[in-house]
């Protein structure tokens, strides 16, 4: 694991040198765009809007459109100037109870590792947070952005979770949401009962990305068969006609209703087999 950022947690007079590691990764399959006839990879070019000419990287600058069509150019030193104060520290402002924070505010988790001479203070903060059941709310600048963040104890380590600022949370008041459900007590009982039945202990390992796994299978099959479409379409589900299954059962019922004497030799109906996907 490579640290993506180094700095320190600071609050009051305490300073804990730490390194920041991403706690999650995106498990996404990446695809290249190719030219169909010879599978040559296709690249993008940065071209100028004005004349369509390609612009080399060294001639590219970043601009902020402060008014339609009007730009102010920001150079590296400008960015540095803006974050020079904050870059190296996670400044804890308050300590709050975790349950007071709406989970919608949490954005992206990182692990914190103590750097040299930070171990003792790191453990101290971790245990103090655990025992007081609180998290530290901090501001931190990473790259070109200031973030709100929470410093949380998580088992034996400290985690830093980047958070949204309140102004980033979209107002939901425009959505049309029913105040009270127009359902009776019976429906509510049914729904609650169903929830009860489907209730389980939270186990993160239970849920996997089925689509990604299925797609990987398809890829492996295609690689094996030299890029040709595999002969079988994998475990693709056949469409089933639910209505037909109902009529098959309905027919069974007609028969069951008629034959009260099981000893009577009846033929055709019993011989009929149900197909899996009628």
């Amino acid at each position, binding site marked *: 694991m490579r640290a993506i950022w180094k700095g320190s947690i600071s609050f009051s007079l305490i300073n804990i040198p730490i390194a920041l590691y991403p706690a999650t990764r995106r498990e996404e399959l990446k695809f290249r765009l190719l030219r169909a006839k010879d599978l040559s990879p296709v690249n993008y070019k940065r071209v100028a809007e004005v004349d369509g000419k390609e612009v080399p990287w060294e001639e590219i600058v970043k601009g902020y459109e402060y008014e339609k069509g009007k730009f102010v150019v920001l150079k590296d030193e400008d960015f540095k100037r803006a974050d020079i104060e904050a870059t190296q520290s996670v400044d804890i402002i308050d300590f709050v109870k975790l349950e007071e924070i709406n989970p919608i505010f949490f954005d992206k988790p990182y692990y914190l590792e103590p750097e040299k001479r930070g171990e003792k203070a790191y453990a101290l903060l971790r245990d103090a947070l655990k025992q007081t059941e609180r998290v530290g709310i901090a501001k931190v600048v990473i790259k070109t952005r200031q973030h709100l963040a929470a410093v949380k104890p998580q088992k034996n380590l400290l985690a830093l979770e980047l958070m949204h600022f309140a102004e980033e949370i979209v107002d939901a008041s425009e959505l049309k949401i029913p105040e009270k459900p127009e359902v*009776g007590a019976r429906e509510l009982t049914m729904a609650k009962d169903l929830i009860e039945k489907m209730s389980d202990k939270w186990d993160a390992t239970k849920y996997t990305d089925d689509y990604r796994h299925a797609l990987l299978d398809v890829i492996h099959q295609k690689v094996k068969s030299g890029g040709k479409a595999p002969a079988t379409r994998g475990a693709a589900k056949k469409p089933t006609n639910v209505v037909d299954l109902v*009529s098959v059962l*309905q*027919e069974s*019922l007609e028969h*069951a209703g008629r034959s009260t004497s099981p*000893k009577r030799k009846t033929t055709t109906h019993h011989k009929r087999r*149900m197909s899996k*996907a009628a």
Partner: protein
Amino acid sequence: MAVPRSSKSAPARSASSRSAAAKQILNVNGRDVPVSHLEKIFYPKSGFTKAQVIDYYIRISPLLLPHLKDRPLTLKRYPDGVDGGFFYEKRCPPYRPDWVKTAPVWSERNDTEIHYCLANDLPSIVWAANLGDLELHTFLSRADNVDRPTMLVFDLDPGPPANMLHCAETGLLLKEHFDALNLQSFPKTSGSKGLQVYVPLNTPITYDDTKSFAHALAIELENARPELIVSRMEKRLRTGKVLVDWSQNDRHKTTVCVYSLRAKERPTVSTPVEWDEVKAALKKKSAERLAFTSDEVLKRVEKNGDLFAPVLKLKQKLPRNP
């Protein structure tokens, strides 16, 4: 033939169903029974679907219903098929249709009445099957007199490496014993690994009587054949032997009903057999002869009718001591 109708996806209904669109109505003897997810595979190793489960129960119902009638039923539900989770449901679900009859049974443990489902008609069976109730577990008594068992049962449960053949041998020993007492006994497969022996009573008796009789007989058999038979429940004692489980003769216990499916790899059924079949299986050393899937059972009953019919009718008196 009645035309299947799809239920209207009224908002109220969708609250009770994960996918209202999949919900269908089956007309069962004039009752509308909602069914859903019929295409779902309930026995993955056999590709046996939920529709096939319901179909089996519909077809076997003329023989099954008399055995279910008025007996408090514990549902053993597998909503996602045999490889998914299951749960026992003693209390008949509150969202049952009003035509599903229930019977109150006092539960000391819960200090309250538990209303069990009664599967007294075909719509109730179809309704239960649609809930993923693969296995039907019933009382040995009827709801009007829950303290009076109508039969005595031994559940012969093999501890590996013991198998069905050891159960067959043990069952035949039981039969010999009952023959000597002039009592008729009836074997059925459990639909799982073992064999079950039923002695019809249908005369006034209590669970205290049947249980102590069964216990005494189990001990007697254990003493006679200690290398084959064990009467105590501890799993570790069962290795390579057959547990003669006498403890099923209890007001609080349910036993898998004859013709019930079991949640095993294949859709096997608790199937009534003849003692001659048990003997033949033992002689030929073929445990397979005492394993029947739903299809095989439907064929068997066309030929044999209900081998278990006497269990409901035959009046027999249990002697005080075995």
